[in-house]
């Protein structure tokens, strides 16, 4: 288990529990009592810590290395997943994965960012930062889903689009713009779940959806706190201040009307109970999907477009 800075007291207690469990030659009943006492303390501490996470702490939780990723959700929730590769122009960008599969009995097109889990897979997926080809693949797959009347589910988890010379040379901005346009054009249900980081243009490219769901400790922002701090505060050290100011938490975004639903995470965050988190998100996606499937394609498209046309018009509620 990887621990975050602010989880240090929790880590210490859990370390003690581990130690006690390995002491076999002492009085077992006493150990059991002690373990139970410490566990209760851990739970209490987790509850109090996670109930009042600061935006900066949430940023760390959203980036937690053990947090479920795109591939975990697909393995857990989607049967017969068949990845479809390539933008049909330049490359296969593994920062974004997409494909057909069956979610709770129904064919869906699933598209999302994959950050990778270890060094090798992180490099292969470019840490979830897509180049133009990734967005062009997403656009192709959305159009395919539209053609075959198959709903689209996107899972967003990216620090942002890849900032590189090659990406710019091939039209990173154009590719993102077209992806947003595709999100808003299709006549099938489009549901987005922000499962970790929703970083900037790289996120909205897949997230102009009928229903946008966010996990409780995910973040979604126009720029990373570090990036914002270095531009506006002229120092990356002010990332905490930037995180506060940006209103990037699920709770703030729900209040702003940017996010439709917030899915609670298990005690201590998604990384502590991965399956439970994935099941909960699956249930929410299924409910949203069922509601959207009752609507005609033209209505789905019009409502989606109207929704984004209204963004910011009413100010903050």
């Amino acid at each position, binding site marked *: 288990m990887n621990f975050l800075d602010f989880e240090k007291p929790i880590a210490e207690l859990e370390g003690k529990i581990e130690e006690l469990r390995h002491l076999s030659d002492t009085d077992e009943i006493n150990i059991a009592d002690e373990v139970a006492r410490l566990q209760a303390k851990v739970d209490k501490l987790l509850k109090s810590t996670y109930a009042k996470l600061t935006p900066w702490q949430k940023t760390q939780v959203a980036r937690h290395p053990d947090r479920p990723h795109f591939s975990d959700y697909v393995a857990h929730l989607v049967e017969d997943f068949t990845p479809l590769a390539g933008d049909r122009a330049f490359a296969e960008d593994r920062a974004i994965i997409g494909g057909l599969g069956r979610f709770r009995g129904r*064919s869906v097109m699933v598209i999302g960012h994959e950050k990778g889990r270890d060094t090798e897979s992180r490099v292969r997926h470019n840490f979830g930062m897509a180049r133009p080809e990734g967005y062009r693949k997403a656009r192709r797959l959305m159009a395919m889903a539209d053609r075959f009347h198959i709903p689209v589910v996107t899972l967003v988890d990216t620090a942002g689009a890849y900032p590189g010379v090659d990406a710019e040379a091939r039209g990173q901005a154009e590719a993102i713009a077209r992806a947003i346009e595709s999100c808003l054009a299709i006549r099938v249900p489009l549901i987005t779940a922000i499962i970790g980081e929703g970083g900037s243009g790289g996120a909205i490219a897949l997230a102009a959806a009928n229903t946008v769901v966010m996990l409780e400790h995910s973040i979604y922002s126009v720029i990373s706190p570090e990036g914002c701090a270095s531009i506006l505060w002229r120092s990356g050290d002010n990332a905490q201040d930037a995180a506060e100011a940006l209103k990037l938490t699920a709770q703030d975004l729900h209040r702003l009307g940017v996010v439709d639903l917030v899915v609670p995470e298990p005690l201590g965050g998604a990384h502590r109970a991965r399956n439970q988190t994935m099941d909960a998100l699956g249930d929410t996606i299924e409910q949203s999907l069922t509601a959207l499937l009752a609507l005609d394609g033209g209505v789905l498209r019009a409502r989606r477009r109207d929704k984004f046309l209204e963004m910011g018009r009413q100010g903050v509620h």
Partner: protein
Amino acid sequence: MNWLTNFVRPEIQQWVRPKEVPDNLWHKCHQCGHMIFHRDLEKNLSVCQHCGFHMRLTVKQRLDMLFDDSFYQRIELPRVAPDPLKFRDSKRYSDRLKEAQGKTLEQDAIAVAHGTMGGVNVVVAAFNFQFMGGSMGMAVGEGLVAAAELAVLQDAPLVVIPSSGGARMQEGILSLMQMARTTVAVDRVKEKGLPYIVLLADPTTGGVTASFAMLGDIHIAEPGAVIGFAGQRVIESTIREKLPDGFQRAEYLLDHGMVDMVVHRHRLRETLVRLLQLLRHPKPPGEVVPLPREPILPVDGDGRV
């Protein structure tokens, strides 16, 4: 070759050559050089069990391995005017055609069949590389048009399996026109909302790649298949450089965004079935499925077709 080499020599050879193991019992793998017994090769769908090299299949092998229970119906294709340009190089095109027809017992380089895969109705058009390198002339164009029309008529997905050196030079500009013609054909299938899947087999090059073969909703390639536009020798002599290993191979195309997946032949059928079912049975079983927009076959009042 003339009548003498064609008809007399084989007999002389039989008579002269000492009796040995018939060569068609053993096949040599082009990649690793191993000799493989024909029954093993057949069982393994013509994939070398030593190095995984995917050998070219005949049309019959291809259709047998894809359809449910190897059951399908081939349709007769419309005849086209043979040798429209009265073309001859070292030999008359009309003679080449007859020779290829005699060798393959097929009319031309494409076969069209329909049947089911995983219970889903499918129309398949498969190229026959043994017939003049699977080259595309009017007859092949005709075959693709017929396959597309059948797919629309049956409300069925279309699977095309190219294995072709490209356009058939002996039909000149008329073969070039098949690129546009086959594009119209497959677009008709797509316009009906029907899936169009391309299974790229070794080799898919030239005008075949640069038309219907790159227009699929989904592109599946066999491992190691050469897929590209210009021939490697042409490129090398133009740029005066040696081409890198793996250039124009299926895996190279995957990295370059041109194919959705590279699938081992052993998993080809299950992959196709899975995709067809995801696309054609998108709803959970038990949910009310609306009637198809058009009847699959014209049925009269008594229910007779």
